[in-house]
């Protein structure tokens, strides 16, 4: 055992280039395939997550274009009923489970450790495992879809339609198993994010000084922890009904179709806030940087985010107003659904106040925020409309609702996401995106979006129900649907423009340097792209906006080992330094465990025995993943 004193540490005696070389050797991920598959660097896993989730956005978008082409004209025979049902089910499933939730988490995996001033996410191997399971789930459902075994009962799969009698074959089984994949990965990442945000903040970054994006991800991760089990339980019951003949949803044997709806929407509504709250985090960071002042009324913003997170669990029944439950119960859910408009309204006020008080610079990210504000407020207001029971009984399951949720999901999450990618692209790649092209993308995106989705409000009021593969002519829906379809292609063009901008900027974007936007948060204190170890020394925070509060040299804390991967742990409330924790070394076992889990999950679609026999290799992989390798760096003496 080497004595604690003479272990190499960063500090006065080891700094600058020597420190960089020494730390790089400890933290770097070599280029060979094995190292790339075994990496646990949050930046590499984060980039993979972002690229994969964005790819699913594009795939889901293509499905949307096919749907709009089919619906552009009445009585269109372009696509058969069965094909259209699979396409709209896959569009919903891909966008909700494979793009929206994972993308919020992907950006957090990349950004949170950098924003908090630490070297890696808290459970790096669990995080790598989460990505592999997510990728496997996405590939499984898309391969099933291309083999004509895609889901056919919508992204919500109401029983008894999704039950064993009315949805024969393996289609709904693949959908239900895909839920298991994406929920396992979302839960794993959330636990990592919660631990990172609570325990690995830079010294001095008290809970009240955290960046708003960190608050957004803390609230989102806690919501994932309490919401996802509901859909895992519901989908497990559904798979059991379909494969081993349990009777959870069989109305004639004591089961109940509404058990599925209650469990699904208890997850479903928090899910849409799990998708939307990271968007709030993006908007707050962009507004702060481009208005050159901290967001107005920080405590109000935080309280609003937390109250949205809590309220989201109390209003799932507003998805079930038409199912004939007792009316007095409904008025409670109307009030709860209305109340959630208050915190959102206050946040909108605070962002605009930040622009009012600050000196806004209207680059592309801030333009996306403006597009977000205009679109999201309209979406929120239509949401207030459908919170009222009588109105919802007319508008539920019509195209009015399709318009509403695209306003709050595309407006509320995709616009801020595109702004966030433009904002953090220089930090991730070291090059700025093309600014004029960025502005053009915002304009085209905004116009395309509203051309596509505003007419749907009117189509819905005119009585067009959702999820119809065609509609008769002469109902007053014809021109409205045509306009929506044109708008959909315009919006797709904007997304294409965005992708081209990214591809062009990767090679020929202007070099960005560490802090191109003069931003306040810690990730802009290190190089672009950041070194494998993020920060040579752990920064110390003295205020809300670390880089603005310390114009000169940045205060830092030294003393972390450089020969082994080590992080600094701080207390939950005040972030006082509390301990040093060894960060997990790269390992191939998370990938192998993910493969074993995938085989178990897919096998269990065909035989329940796969759960029993598949559990053995999965357990073996997990044990090998946990078992310390003898070749590790010498541990510190046991009793200090």
């Amino acid at each position, binding site marked *: 055992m080497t004595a604690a004193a003479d272990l190499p540490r960063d500090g006065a005696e080891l700094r600058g280039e020597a420190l960089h070389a020494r730390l790089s050797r400890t933290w770097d991920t070599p280029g060979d395939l094995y190292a790339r598959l075994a990496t646990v660097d949050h930046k590499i896993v984060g980039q993979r997550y972002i690229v994969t989730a964005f790819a699913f956005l594009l795939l889901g978008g293509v499905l949307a274009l096919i749907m709009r082409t089919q619906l552009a004209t009445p009585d269109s025979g372009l696509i058969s*009923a069965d094909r259209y049902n699979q396409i709209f089910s896959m569009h919903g499933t891909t966008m909700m489970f494979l793009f929206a939730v994972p993308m919020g988490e992907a950006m957090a995996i990349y950004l949170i450790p950098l924003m908090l001033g630490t070297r890696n996410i808290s459970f790096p191997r669990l995080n790598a495992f989460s990505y592999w399971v997510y990728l496997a789930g996405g590939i499984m459902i898309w391969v099933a879809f291309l083999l004509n075994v895609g889901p056919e009962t919508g992204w919500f799969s109401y029983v008894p339609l999704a039950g064993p009698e009315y949805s024969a074959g393996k289609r709904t089984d693949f959908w239900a198993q895909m839920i298991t994949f994406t929920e396992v990965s979302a839960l794993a990442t959330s636990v990592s994010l919660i631990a990172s945000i609570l325990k690995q903040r830079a010294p001095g970054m008290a809970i009240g000084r955290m960046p708003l994006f960190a608050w957004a991800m803390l609230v989102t991760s806690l919501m994932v922890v309490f919401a996802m089990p509901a859909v895992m339980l519901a989908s497990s019951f559904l798979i059991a009904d379909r494969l081993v003949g349990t009777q959870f949803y069989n109305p004639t044997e004591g089961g109940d179709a509404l058990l599925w709806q209650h469990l699904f929407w208890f997850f479903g509504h928090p899910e849409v806030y799990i998708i939307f709250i990271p968007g709030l985090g993006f908007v707050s960071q962009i507004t702060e940087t481009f208005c050159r002042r901290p967001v107005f009324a920080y405590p109000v913003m935080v309280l609003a985010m937390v109250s949205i997170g809590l309220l989201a669990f109390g209003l799932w029944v507003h998805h079930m107003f038409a199912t004939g439950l007792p009316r007095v119960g409904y008025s409670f859910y109307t009030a709860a659904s209305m109340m959630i408009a208050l915190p959102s309204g206050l946040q909108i006020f605070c962002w605009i*106040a930040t622009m009012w*008080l600050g000196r806004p610079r209207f680059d592309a990210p801030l333009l996306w925020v403006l597009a977000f504000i205009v679109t999201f407020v309209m979406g929120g207001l239509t949401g207030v409309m459908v919170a009222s029971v009588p109105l919802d009984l*007319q508008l539920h399951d019509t195209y009015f609702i399709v318009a509403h949720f695209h306003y709050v999901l595309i407006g509320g999450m995709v616009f801020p996401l595109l702004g966030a990618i433009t904002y953090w692209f220089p930090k991730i790649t070291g090059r700025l995106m093309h600014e004029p092209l960025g502005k053009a993308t915002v304009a085209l995106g905004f116009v395309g979006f509203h051309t596509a989705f505003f007419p749907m409000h009117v189509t819905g*009021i005119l009585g067009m*129900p959702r999820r*119809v593969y065609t509609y008769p002519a002469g109902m007053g829906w014809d021109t409205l649907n045509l306009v929506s379809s044109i708008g959909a292609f315009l919006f797709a063009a904007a997304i294409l423009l965005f992708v081209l901008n990214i591809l062009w900027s990767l090679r020929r974007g202007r070099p960005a340097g560490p802090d191109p936007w003069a931003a306040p948060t810690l990730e802009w204190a290190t190089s672009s792209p950041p070194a494998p170890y993020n920060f040579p020394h752990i920064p110390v925070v003295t205020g809300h906006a670390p880089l603005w509060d310390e114009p000169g040299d940045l205060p830092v804390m030294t003393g972390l080992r450089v020969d082994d991967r080590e992080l600094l742990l701080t207390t939950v409330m005040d972030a006082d330094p509390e301990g040093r924790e060894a960060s997990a070394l790269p390992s191939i076992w998370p990938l192998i465990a993910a493969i074993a889990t995938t085989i178990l999950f897919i096998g269990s679609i065909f035989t329940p025995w796969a759960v029993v026999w598949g559990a053995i290799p999965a357990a073996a992989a997990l044990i090998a993943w946990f078992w310390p390798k003898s070749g590790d760096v010498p541990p510190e003496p046991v009793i200090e």
Partner: protein
Amino acid sequence: MRRRAALTALPLGGCAGIQSAADGAGRHAAIVGDLFTLFLWITGFFFLLVLLFLGWAILRRRSDGTAERGMAVTLAGWAGLITLGLFALTIASFFTDRWLAAASAGREPPLRLKVTAQQWWWQIEYLDPLPANRLRTANVIHLPAGRPVEISLAAEDVIHSFWVPNLAGKQDLIPGRTTDIQLLPTRVGRFRGQCAEFCGLQHAHMALDIIVEPAKDFAAWRTKALAPAPAPQTPQQKADYAYFMTHQCASCHAISGTPAQGTIGPDLTGVAGRLSLAAGTLPNNRAMLQGWIANPQTIKPGSRMPTIKMSGAELEAVTAYLETLS
């Protein structure tokens, strides 16, 4: 009618379709339409405020040291305004609920119906204490104007949703549960309802026709519908009748007063008099009827109506016989 005109004057202008929530041909739909107008004005007002504040924040001249205190007070004011607005909307919604519940108060006793939804068509039963007055039909509801209607809803297979936007809001039909819906048609006319809960392959073709007519027309229609189907006279009619009764048609469909008593498919009593065929999919004329019988799977792929191998003459016989059932 004054308020109705106010509603249609809104940007929703040309909204008086036969399947439109903004038309308000039923008392319930009219009340909800007014609530929608109130919501539209209040939410529009708030949206305008946000746009003004945003525009001002973008265009204003930057002057340093502007008071943050003023902004904090404005924030408090904004919070109060939102709370007030939400409170008003919640109260309006709550009272609308009460008006809807009491919409049929003080009127003649409601007409009782039972609607059973199946994969992709509607079975309609007019309930009556006297068994002789009970009437079963499919995909069409005749209603007397001005008389309340009480419909009990049930589903045979999966979840459907009964929705006639011109008359009232929707209500799901759930297997294993019975739900109900109240209507009060006020304006005579022809309306269209459609299933609003995704229910499988042919969810898009699961509509029904609602015909609101004066009370005496309704009574005339009802007595004619209750009468058994006219017996065949001419030898040709007898041959058509014989073919229909001895082949697959009779095992799924029912025609009152004939040996055809199948309850798997829609009731065909008086099918010739209906406005549309195959749950609102096709207009009801001889060519469409023949095309539908010949090959239903091309019109409604996945429909439970199978493709029956028939020669031209047999097809002609079935079509001719059904044409007599008006």
